[in-house]
């Protein structure tokens, strides 16, 4: 486990060398700026509700781009062989890559702090919901990264990894939201299912509500995907 920080460091610095990361950064900031423009209007409550609420949709597409290469590239380039013939365990690799990608995601979020500064200049700002919103974003980001890492560990192809990640994120985030829009037509059982969707849990954070149940949900699902990734990497030996 002690080697995870070394691997995380390499992943983060690796992002700054790759054009893909700049594409992700651009898409993310464009989307964020677009949503913020609606928050940053006279008469609107001083907050980042729009940014936080809508950001999740952008993340469904941005995070897969960040994560598609995490393992797929190692498989494709063969570097996985040098990696695992150094005294490094599967858990080191998975944690390192997870921390690296989540760390870069945090870097992605950093420029949006400027919005907070802008709002503060023009209004009396309630920081509670902002902090809660960022916590929610980081938790969702980490969950999405763990899904992306898992999909990336399954294939040598970055494209396949990205598409698979978007598909999974669609099922756990967008699909429940869409179903909920037609909740009246759903059976009681389906209504319950949609309430467990990622979006539903996430919006509470942007309202400023930190529900420990939601925190546990995000952390647990993230842990499950990381655990599955470790198992996928271990399974390579039994082929």
């Amino acid at each position, binding site marked *: 486990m002690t080697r995870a920080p*070394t*691997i995380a460091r390499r992943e983060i610095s690796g992002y700054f060398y790759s054009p893909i990361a700049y594409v992700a950064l651009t898409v993310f900031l464009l989307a964020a700026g677009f949503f913020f423009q609606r928050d940053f209007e006279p008469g609107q409550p001083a907050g980042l509700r729009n940014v936080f609420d809508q950001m999740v949709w952008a993340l469904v597409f941005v995070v897969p781009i960040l994560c598609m290469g995490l393992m797929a590239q190692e498989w494709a380039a*063969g570097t996985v*062989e040098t990696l695992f*013939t150094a*005294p490094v365990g599967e858990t080191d690799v998975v944690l390192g890559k997870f921390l690296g990608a989540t760390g870069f995601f945090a870097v992605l979020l950093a420029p949006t702090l400027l919005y907070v500064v802008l709002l503060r200049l023009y209004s009396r700002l309630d920081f509670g919901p902002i902090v809660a919103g960022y916590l929610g974003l980081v938790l969702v980001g980490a969950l999405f990264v763990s899904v992306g890492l898992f999909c990336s560990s399954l294939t040598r192809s970055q494209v396949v990894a990205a598409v698979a990640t978007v598909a999974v994120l669609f099922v756990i985030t967008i699909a429940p939201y869409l179903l909920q829009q037609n909740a009246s037509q759903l059976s009681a059982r389906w209504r319950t299912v949609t309430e467990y969707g990622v979006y539903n849990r996430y919006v509470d954070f942007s309202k400023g509500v930190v529900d420990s149940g939601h925190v546990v949900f995000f952390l647990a699902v993230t842990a499950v995907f990381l655990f599955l990734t470790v198992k996928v990497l271990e399974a390579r030996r039994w082929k």
Partner: protein
Amino acid sequence: MISVSQLTKAYGPVLAVDHISFEVPKGQIVGFLGPNGAGKSTTIRMLSCYLPPTSGGATVNGFDIFHESGKVRENLGYLPESCPLYTEMKAREYLDYRGRLRKMPRDERRKRIEYVIDRCYLTRFADRVIGHLSKGQRQRVGLADALLHNPAVLILDEPTVGLDPTQIIEVRRLIKDLGGDHTVMLSTHILPEVEAVCDRAIIIAGGRVVAQGSPDELRASRRMQARVLVECKAAPDAVRSALGAVAGVRDVEILDGHPGHAPADADGFVTAAVRSEESRDVREEVARTVTQNRWPLREIRLEQATLEEFFVRVTAAQATQAVGA
């Protein structure tokens, strides 16, 4: 020191490596030879703990590759076949990352990085991005990585592929220098490399060890004796019967149309290959026979069997067996 016993790897019903056993004593440089698909890389991947064996086992530096794989990997320098590297990193940066992965203390890490950069002739490329380096330069970055932690055992999968002739000589000299302190196992297709560098060769084919020994031993082994080539002007049949009657000669073969040998009918000269019984030099007797018959003689020489021929022979025999089985 590497000790392999009954090591086997099965991919489904196919045995890529079939119960092989061999030893590499401490400080020895061993060449691991075999045609493509012989199981070289699979064996090496098991020894480097990348793949687990299906059955059998091995120890590297005294540690079991299955139960003590962490210890094995700490004591092993490994250069994989295609020399995979992170192409977006600079060479020095990459070595630093590898040193950190191996938990080398900072001072030692810096010192070793400078040492291996110098040792692998990387000084001019150390601060370039690996993706911009040539195949040979990358190969040396891989080699530097394998040497970084000063491992007791080095396993190099085709270390000179992609190098130019000068670099090949330099890298071979480097590997030769490493012998003694380090135990080195290198796989290669290039037979002169084995003769130039290795104390011993292990030849595998069809997942089995088909021969092992020093290059000299292999060349001198019973299946590949030296032969005497005689080029003289006479009827092929007369040459065959006269030389066949010389004491100590086992068989005579008339070569024709071989490159370097004039065909028998062009100017009347024929080339006969004379194989003698074990360890008997028949050149004098052969020469006497030729002069007694008053055949004009152009050449008589002892031809040493090359390791190539030996290699082709043992691996071909294995292939025939496999088809028959």
